[in-house]
């Protein structure tokens, strides 16, 4: 299986008034062709920053080091002109907030057609727009295409933004919190939609979410983020059945079906991280080493963990 995306020691720093914020540190993972890789983590753990890095959409003030490779080609430390042909065409984004991510005064059909047009789809345009809409489960694509985004429900907007992202037939899709702010039914439909995408083995997806159920249901690999770091990475079965990092274990225990036991403490702000292991204040198996030394990234056999105990 070919590796479609490889992230190597990615560091993103934002200079702010209160010092430098390490939004993501030494992130390394890979996404294979046809796989869905899910990054889970709390708000502010640096998940979205990774998606933005892959798409070159970080704010200009960000200071970055590291490397992102797309089919063995460096795409991170290259100029905007070199990157431009990839964006939208090869790698596309399902944005975080579908309501705000649609142009409020452009008809739904046109928003899809625009992307199709720009990326020079050979097929006949209107037909394709309707096809895309009906493939997304819209019952009357003709009507939907003539309407404006504010006339759709949250779940429909979610599907529409997905349609826009898929219109150019990208090789890699980045989905930023696709179930955020959706009710139970809409969330379930979104999950179904991604499961369908998964059956179509061409698409690789990098999904960023804090929805553990979604990660377990549709993910092939999963990465757990904590305080801007990847603390655990591996196959979904492995990570969910035998979590190695105490944070992952705590997260799983906090799920309603596992007894809803909350983790003690709160995660540190990215501006004032503790010394040593960032998790040591909340760790149930905390060792003296963890208080002093920052753990390295142990990686092997498709499984990675950042903990002294391994």
């Amino acid at each position: 299986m070919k590796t479609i995306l490889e992230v190597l020691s990615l560091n993103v720093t934002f200079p702010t008034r209160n010092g430098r914020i390490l939004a993501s540190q030494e992130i390394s993972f890979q996404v294979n062709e046809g796989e869905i890789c899910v990054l889970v983590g709390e708000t502010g753990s640096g998940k979205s920053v990774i998606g933005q890095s892959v798409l070159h959409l970080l704010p200009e003030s960000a200071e970055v080091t590291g490397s992102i490779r797309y089919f063995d080609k460096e795409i991170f430390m290259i100029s905007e002109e070199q990157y431009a042909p990839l964006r939208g065409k090869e790698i596309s984004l399902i944005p975080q907030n579908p309501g705000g991510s649609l142009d409020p005064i452009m008809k739904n059909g046109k928003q899809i057609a625009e992307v199709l047009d720009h990326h020079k789809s050979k097929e006949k345009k209107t037909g394709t727009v309707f096809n895309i809409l009906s493939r997304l489960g819209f019952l009357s694509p003709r009507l939907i295409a003539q309407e404006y985004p504010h006339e759709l429900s949250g779940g429909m907007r979610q599907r529409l933004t997905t349609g826009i992202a898929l219109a150019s037939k990208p090789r890699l899709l980045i989905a930023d919190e696709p179930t955020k702010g959706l009710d139970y039914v809409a969330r379930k439909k979104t999950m179904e939609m991604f499961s369908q995408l998964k059956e179509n083995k061409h698409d690789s997806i990098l999904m960023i979410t804090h929805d553990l159920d979604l990660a377990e249901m549709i993910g092939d690999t999963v990465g757990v983020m904590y305080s801007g770091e990847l603390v655990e990475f591996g196959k979904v079965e492995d990570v969910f059945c035998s979590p190695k990092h105490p944070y992952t274990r705590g997260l799983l225990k906090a799920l309603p079906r596992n007894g809803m036991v909350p983790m003690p403490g709160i995660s540190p702000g990215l501006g004032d991280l503790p010394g040593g292991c960032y998790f040591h204040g909340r760790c149930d198996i905390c060792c003296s080493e963890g208080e002093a030394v920052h753990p390295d990234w142990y990686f092997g056999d498709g499984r990675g963990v950042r903990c002294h105990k391994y």
Partner: protein
Amino acid sequence: MSEVWSPGNVRKIYTRLSGTDFYARLMKRPFLVLTVVLIGFVLVLSVFAPVIAPQDPNATDLYGKNQGPSEEHVFGTDYLGRDLFSRTLCGLQTSMAIALTTIFVTFFIGTAIGCYSAYHGGWVDNVFARIIDVFLAFPSIILALALITLIGPGIFNMILMLAVVQWASFARLMRGQVLSEKNREYVQSAKAAGLPAWMIMVKHIAPNCIMPVLILATMDIGHTILAISTLSFLGLGIPPSVPEWGSMINSGLNYMRIAPLNVIIPGLAITVVTLLFNIAGEGLRDVSDPNSDNTVAL
């Protein structure tokens, strides 16, 4: 053309328009509807002025100068015996032609510069913002006066100068709009979809920002008509052979005692047309703003 205006098509357009909030809010303001109708009337008048005018506006009759209203001359004649009514009508054409051209030019230049500057950001934006500030720091009519003295009078020069002094206010308004709009999520996702910058600006940002600028443009038509009349009143701008309200007032001033209508009629015309466009501009602002539903001004 005939297809567009076929009865079926017109009915279809009307049905779609009448379903919009915009239309509903417009219909709540009968005075605004009247203003819009009157502006339409003024525009038609200005286009067909030479045809409607009962007499040649430049035909002199020195035996019948400075006359009061009569059957032949509705508003009387001026100091050269020219028909005042015809001159006022043709003056409308002059004013509207110059004002609309100026507004079109300033609108496009101003919005383009404002949009580009704000979207690009960084030093480009800084440079443009300072240039805009400099232009806004001058009293516009004095700047226009100085520039026209510099390059000489004439209709084309007048349009050029009015554009030079007016583009900055359009650019500033557009820049402010785009600055707030460009960080919206839909702009980010358009970027993520790989659309080029010009396409994002023209197709997504500009349509979402344009309404306040359109309102400013409507109101500025009135101001421009006023500026044109001011400049011609001072003898700068329009050649004396072309009927224009400002220069008509200027020449009528000398005979104000014996033929007061020569000052009053063009003065009234300026007031009425300027007022119409100002009211329309404010009305457009109310109509385009859903929050204005409870505050019916006009």
